[in-house]
């Protein structure tokens, strides 16, 4: 069920990844201010946007779970947050590399954009121990959904608070006073954003398919009255 359309999606993701890398290194012009370093922008910013949207998507799936009590939505919420946390790790590392090259420091503590993303990331990092701490599967799913909704609502609030803070260090991508990026840069950026979105969707589907297959095998073992190898996972929701 979850694997439906995974093959064309994977092919589209790989094709878009190749196209985006070509555009980044052979089409997009060098930035007049930052030079070659600005190429990090095309991986760092789309990853950050996708991770934040993924966290919100996790919250939306959690609402659907709380409304319908269907465990499928809990699995969607868990996987959306899981993949977004992985994207978040990539955002923090690529951001630190860019900061070191551009500002001479790996991390700047008085920069609201950086610190706010770290807060969001750390908030979602607590999702796993929170989920793991609850034994009962129904309560676990319900409490995890409440966490995902609350944290998901925090993401746009946090984003708006940062936009309102007038920092001079971290660059703004859209709606700048100078009119934003030139056309070639914008096209490359949008291509990269679509690629990251496709990659996120592919990984979510991939993870759900693997969980579904694992769940089916466990059900089959139970039906055959055979011992379940490795026991049940207490963190990850089982998908049927």
């Amino acid at each position, binding site marked *: 069920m979850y694997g439906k359309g995974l093959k064309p999606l994977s092919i589209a993701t790989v094709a878009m990844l190749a196209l985006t*890398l070509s555009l980044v290194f052979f089409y997009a012009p060098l*930035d007049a*201010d*930052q*030079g*070659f*370093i600005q*190429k*990090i922008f095309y*991986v*760092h910013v789309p*990853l950050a946007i996708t991770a934040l949207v993924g966290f919100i998507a996790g919250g939306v799936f959690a609402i659907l779970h709380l409304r319908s009590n269907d465990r499928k939505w809990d699995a969607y919420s868990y996987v959306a947050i899981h993949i977004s946390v*992985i994207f978040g*790790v*990539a955002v923090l*590392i*690529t951001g630190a*590399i*860019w900061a*070191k*090259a*551009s*500002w*001479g*420091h790996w991390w*700047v503590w*008085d920069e609201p954009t950086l610190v706010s993303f770290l807060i969001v990331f750390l908030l979602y990092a607590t999702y796993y121990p929170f989920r793991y701490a609850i034994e009962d599967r129904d309560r676990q799913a319900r409490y995890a959904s409440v966490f995902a909704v609350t944290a998901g609502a925090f993401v746009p609030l946090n984003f708006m608070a940062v936009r309102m803070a007038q920092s*001079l*260090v971290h660059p703004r991508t859209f709606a700048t006073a100078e009119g934003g990026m030139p056309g070639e840069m914008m096209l490359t950026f949008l291509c990269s954003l679509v690629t990251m979105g496709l*990659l996120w969707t592919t*990984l979510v589907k*991939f*993870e759900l398919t*693997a969980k579904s*297959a*694992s769940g089916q*095998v466990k059900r*089959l*073992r139970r039906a*055959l009255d*055979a011992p379940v*190898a*490795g026991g049940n996972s207490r963190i990850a929701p089982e998908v049927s």
Partner: protein
Amino acid sequence: MEVLIAAPALPLDEAGKYVAGAYIVFMVLLVVYVAIMAAKLGRIERELREVAAIAEERKDERREEVNA
């Protein structure tokens, strides 16, 4: 803070290693994730083979019972 804003763009030879580093980090994370998923799928396949073997055993046992 003024020092950070005034930092000039790095020359291409120096900037290259940072850009390469950022893209390599992204690719490495992706490859590590795919490798972990491949290991998980390998485990599922092994479990499925075990379940299939148990099902076959049960089928043989039932056939023997019917023949007896």
